[in-house]
């Protein structure tokens, strides 16, 4: 039996990241896209902390993870505000219906 090591955590984080991308690109609802982004941020946080532990960087990685969480909070607040604005403008939050970029 393999002892749990860095590779395991990285595997979890990469799968989580991929799932996040999947969510971002497949879901129609803008809020769900936001959730996918949160998953991706968490995946990267796992990476930070795993590398900090196994790379012997002390607490540096954890500080970074803390910053990422703060950024995620700020991002979530702004993103939700934007979503609300989109809803007001287009009367929908389905991103596939918002294709003004095409024109």
């Amino acid at each position, binding site marked *: 039996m393999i002892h749990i090591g860095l590779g395991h955590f990285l595997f979890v984080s990469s799968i989580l990241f*991929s799932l996040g991308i999947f969510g971002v690109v497949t879901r129609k*609802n803008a809020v769900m896209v936001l959730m996918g982004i949160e998953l991706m941020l968490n995946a990267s946080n796992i990476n930070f902390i795993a590398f900090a532990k*196994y790379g012997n960087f002390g607490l540096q990685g954890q500080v970074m993870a803390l910053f990422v*969480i703060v950024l995620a909070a*700020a991002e979530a607040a*702004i993103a939700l505000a934007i979503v609300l604005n989109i809803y007001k403008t287009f009367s929908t939050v389905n991103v596939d219906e918002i294709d003004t970029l095409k024109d």
Partner: protein
Amino acid sequence: MSIYDIIFYLFATITLVSAFFVVTIRNIVYSAFFLLFTFFGVAGIYVILGADFIAMVQLIVYVGGILILILFGVMLTNKITNVQIKTGTSQIIPAAIGVGLFAGILTATLVNTPWRKIDNSPLFPTTQGLGLMLISEYGVVFELLGILLLIALIGAASLARK
């Protein structure tokens, strides 16, 4: 298989399965609940990695803040009573192929990379150390983050008010 390993696999399973449901389940409210479990799982993984303070922050900020925010977003943009709450999906197949390839190549990379192995770095409480670092080494960044949060707050408020 030690107890450590069992706990890891438990949390990893919780994280990945619930994340899978987050991105696949059609009902948006269920998605949000599964996101809650994902956050819990991730917090557990943090604990396994010896980051106790981060795990707590994860629970407080994500579960207590961001998740609630998201739920508010869902409720403000969908009428609960409506069937609209079941959100659709698009371009499943290309996305699945792309994401599968992406995950595959990431996994292949991390399996094939000769990681440096440092065993048994002792676990200790990190709160004090983090606190010292935030006000000494990363003081400026910490202050900037505070400003950022303030700006985000004002920005979000002004955006949402329109």
